[in-house]
């Protein structure tokens, strides 16, 4: 097992101008300072300059990463892609639905289901949208939330998964 840390004390004890650091070893910020001050170069086993490794989360972590995706999820009809719920509340006016759906289409979303209610001047709209990949979620959310405004409409964008977890087993 490689040593876990290299501290400032280790740098002080190190003889020579170079220290080879095992891949899983973490060098403390104080040791980095000490190495700079003493002119000690830190290298990884391949000879390159040392960079902080990704955290080693422990022996259970790899098992957990393997098993987590195998945990049963609440039933989903459309397993592919990313399901998104868009809920919009606001003042009804001509073209508001077209604006919203156009923005969804531009963001790469396919509207799977739609439900709208109107009460007097106000509307309440729920859209179930399918995205091709998860990377489209953030831009779509930003776009929709920046549209409208307090006097017009407010959109809320959430992953469908939270609804599935809450309402399906």
């Amino acid at each position, binding site marked *: 097992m490689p040593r876990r840390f290299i501290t400032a004390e280790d740098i002080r004890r190190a003889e020579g101008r170079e220290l080879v650091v095992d891949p899983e070893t973490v060098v403390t910020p104080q040791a980095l300072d000490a190495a700079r001050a003493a002119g000690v170069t830190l290298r990884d086993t391949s000879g390159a300059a040392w960079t902080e490794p990704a955290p080693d989360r422990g022996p259970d972590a790899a098992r957990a990463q393997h098993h987590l995706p195998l945990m049963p999820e609440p039933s989903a009809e459309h397993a592919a892609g990313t399901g998104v719920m868009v809920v919009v509340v606001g003042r009804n006016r001509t073209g508001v639905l077209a604006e919203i759906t156009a923005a969804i289409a531009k963001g790469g979303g396919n509207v799977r289901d739609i439900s709208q209610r109107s009460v007097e001047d106000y509307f309440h709209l*729920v859209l179930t949208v399918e995205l091709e990949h998860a990377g489209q979620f953030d831009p779509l959310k930003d776009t929709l939330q920046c549209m409208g405004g307090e006097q017009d409409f407010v959109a809320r964008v*959430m992953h469908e998964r939270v609804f599935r977890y809450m309402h399906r087993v």
Partner: protein
Amino acid sequence: MSFSDQEILETLRMVELETLDVRTTTLGINLLDCADPDLESACEKVYTKILHHGKDLVRTAESIASDYGVPIVNKRIAVTPISLIAGPSGADSLVPLAKAMDAAAEEVGVDFIGGFTAYVHKGFTRADEALFRSIPEALAATKRVCSSVSLGTTKAGINMDAVVQFTDIVLDTAERTKADGGLGCAKLVCFMNPVEDNPFVAGAHIGIGEPETVINVGVSGPGVVRSAIERLGPDADLLAVYEVIKRTAFKITRVGELVGREAARRLGTTFGIVDVSLAPTPAQGDSISDILELIGVDRTGAPGTTVALAMLTDAVKKGGAMASSSVGGLSGAFIPVSEDMGMIAAVRDEALSLAKLEAMSAVCSVGLDMIAVPGDTPAATITGIIADELAIGMVNTKTTAVRMIPVPGKGPGETVEWGGLLGTAIVQDPGRFSCSLLHARGGRVPAPLQSYKN
């Protein structure tokens, strides 16, 4: 998959109007490999390891909150009991380790870090002693560090010598933080039967059976439960009330399960537990007391409060147990007095006494939590209150805890403002009779008969 409008609106209502949130996402980090004969090097390792593992925690939690639309209120870190890594250094004061934890917590961006902890339910090691001695200064000198100690277990009984020492620590900590109303004591808790995967501060720490790193999630949602009972109305019988609480707890816990799985996946670590405790905040409507009053007591603390709380706790556990296979931590209902507007009002109206709180703690998930007592309360009285609470946990094989703040310069009935999540407290009267001989005797309360199960 299509959802009915009703289902969609229910979820949105919970988040928007009923303050449904995930109360905490706590990253547990094992620090056993940070032990070092040189205390300075141990501090360096502690700081580095917390930073190395914790640096992505806040960003990850915020991205999950944004994706799922459910706020994650607190991001915290829990570490191995510090007394376990301090041994090799032989240091008398472990304050530098607390400062290293504090600096790392600040750098990572979490508001609290738990684990300045010792297990002394059967006796002290040298390192445990050093930790006990260091607690008052550590809590006064740091902002984010929380300290917890185990003073008893059902298997070991109660270490009364440790209880007496803990009382001195509580009084010393209050004195050192008197400018802030004894606030240091809000970061200090003692336990009977501590749980090793508790994500909630001040008792958060990672026990020795835990993995290298682990994500534990604490859900919340008193506001959601309250609204659900409110909608049910006064005509429903207790079975119907129970059913509504159980169903609501199921839904809340599902969100915790989702967030826990997702946080573990994104951080590349293990998902530990969901703690399904209903945890109040000083915000309007986010109150356990309101729920008890909706179940049917005039004021919290009145006759009927204990049975209402017992029912609430059990319904939450059953709903939670069906929603997640990883229910753990404390899981029940929290009754921190100063953090719950309804509880504070009940104390102000003299409906809720210390004695009633003690009875309530026999059926909820923790114990006497965030209780203010006068700053000049005799040490023997504090020892007695703590030991009584521990006895309830010992005999009932459950976790109990005491987080008590003797407020310097304040007497019964006076108000103290701590602000933020810690809220406001009314100083409560511990009575004029004490237990000075019990305090002076010290020693050990042996394990009860119900612990002999082998």
